[in-house]
Every structure is written in structure tokens, then in C-alpha cells.
């Protein structure tokens, strides 16, 4: 697959993503600066990586959403192209209206940097197709604004259309208040759009893809995305 990784001022997970996709998964990767107005030809998937775009000023992702490259990403998504936002990338995609809901400040007022366990909510998406609903996946989170929120109607349509990708769980797969690291509604850790070609999630699979890091559950997510 051809991946284009967008770099905003303040992005800081772009190199980790390049490393995971290129070195570990053997994929073709281009970095695209946010001032570009078009994506490299043959882009299959746009990755909007984590970081603190524009210093998280105003709201996380709010200013990046109007960077020049974003129009090309909107068009790519409208044509059915794949877009995957991680952490700050997820926040940018909600601000851009490519994904529903919003990411608010963590309910406990702290920045959370730790491993959590993800429980897939569906197998009917590219990202989760080869994951097991019976398993949990250990993936790190690192965010201050990760509390997923949407109004009641939106939440219901996310459930009805199987747009929820992952819940925050414990290693046994239990999903409740105690396994919720930030106060997200329904323990939601990631969602996709209705057409299931735009994905967003707060946890960082690229940080759990190299054996030397002691955890390769993130690689399992990438492999599922790649249909393997």
C-alpha cells in the first residue's frame, strides 16, 4: 500500500509512523508537508500522525484543519480513499468534519501516557477485519485531550452503523468505568466514518510495532489494515 504521512508544524509521531510502515511492514511511504496542496499520486492511505499541531492552540487540531493540504485530504476521502488519524490526527479529522464527535480534555485533568488494552468493537472495517473480538490488544496512549464526546443522536448512529472501532478495556476484555483512561463516552477509543474509509483512534499502534520495544500488538493492527 502507498502511504502518505502528513507533517504539520508540531507533528511528532510522523517519524515513528514512517519507521513502522516502511521498515517493519515494508510499505511505500511518502511524507507530505502541510503546505502542499496535493497528495502524491498513487496515495492509497493518508496518515495524519500524532503530535501537537500548531501547539494545540485554540483547540487540539482546530488550526491544522485549515492547513493547505487538508482540502486534498477531504477530496481523497470523498473519493473513497483511505485516511487514518492517530491521536492528534484523530482530533484533526474530527475538527475537519471527516469524523463525527470531538475529543475533550481528559476527565481527570491529567495527561495520560501508558499502555491500555483495546477491545475491537467490530470486524466489519478494514482496520479491524483480522482482529479477534475475543482478544485485547495492548497499545500505548499519550494524550491530554482524549475524551471522546458526541451528542446522543450521533452516538446512536455510530453504534447503529458499526462505526465504533475500539473500546478501552482491561486485559480480560472488560469494558467499564475502571478501564476508561480519559472519560470517553462508552469507552470509545476509535471510530470510523459511515463509509468506513476514514479512521481515527487515540492510541498509538506505531509505538508498539518493533519487537525491541517489547510489544508488537500495534503491528497486528497494521497487518489487519493491510489485509494480512
Amino acid at each position, binding site marked *: 500500500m502507498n502511504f502518505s504521512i502528513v507533517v504539520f508544524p508540531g507533528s511528532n509521531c510522523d517519524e515513528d509512523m514512517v519507521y513502522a510502515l516502511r521498515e517493519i511492514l515494508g510499505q511505500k511511504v511518502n511524507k507530505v508537508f502541510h503546505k502542499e496542496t496535493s497528495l502524491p499520486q498513487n496515495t492509497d492511505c493518508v496518515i495524519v500522525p500524532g503530535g501537537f499541531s500548531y501547539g494545540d492552540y485554540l483547540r487540539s487540531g482546530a488550526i491544522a484543519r485549515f492547513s493547505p493540504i487538508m482540502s486534498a485530504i477531504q477530496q481523497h476521502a470523498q473519493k473513497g480513499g483511505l485516511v487514518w488519524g492517530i491521536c492528534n490526527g484523530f482530533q484533526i479529522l474530527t475538527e475537519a468534519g471527516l469524523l463525527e464527535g470531538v475529543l*475533550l480534555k481528559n476527565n*481527570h485533568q491529567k495527561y495520560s501516557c501508558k499502555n491500555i488494552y483495546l477491545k475491537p468493537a467490530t470486524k466489519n472495517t478494514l482496520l479491524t477485519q483480522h482482529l479477534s473480538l475475543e482478544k485485547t490488544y495492548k497499545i500505548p496512549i499519550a494524550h491530554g485531550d482524549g475524551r471522546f464526546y458526541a451528542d446522543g443522536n450521533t452516538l446512536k448512529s455510530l453504534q447503529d452503523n458499526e462505526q465504533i472501532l475500539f473500546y478501552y478495556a482491561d486485559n480480560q476484555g472488560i469494558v467499564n468505568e475502571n478501564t476508561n483512561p480519559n472519560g470517553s463516552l462508552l469507552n470509545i477509543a476509535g471510530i470510523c466514518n459511515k463509509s468506513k474509509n476514514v479512521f481515527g483512534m487515540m492510541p498509538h499502534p506505531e509505538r508498539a510495532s518493533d519487537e525491541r520495544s517489547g510489544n508488537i500488538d500495534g503491528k497486528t493492527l497494521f497487518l489487519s489494515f493491510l489485509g494480512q
Partner: protein
Amino acid sequence: MNFRVEINVMTKKEILDPQGKAVKLGLTNVGINAIKDVRIGKHIVLDLEADNEEDAKQKAEISCKKLLANLIMEDYHYTISTL
């Protein structure tokens, strides 16, 4: 004409404001116990040129709706004055 638009952006009432919660605790530590609730928002001041007040209002509305507030989580109010 030059106008000043003073905008307040507040998190919607039904949404938990952790910052406000922390500051409420701080105010209790200061010794003020009568405070029932604290909510924190943003105050944004725009100085702009516009043909008239209506034009300034339109510019303020677009600024708020497109960038300054996220209507899923926030409400906004503003006042306009001439400079």
C-alpha cells in the same frame, strides 16, 4: 470602519469542564467556599475592518462558526463596538 469584536467561547453546560473543576478546588483552598461552580472559557478579541456593523457581524459569525468555536462542544457569544 474599524470594529472590535469581543468573543466569549464557553464549553457547553452539559459537558464536564475539568479545568473549571480544578480551579474550583483551588478557590476552596484559597478559603472561598461559597462557589458552586466554575467554568472556564476563552475570551477572544478581534480588531477588524468592515464596511459597517452588519458586515463586522458577518465576519465575526464566520470566524466563530468555522474556527473559533467547535459547536459540538462549545457555545459562543460576542459584542461589537466601533474603534
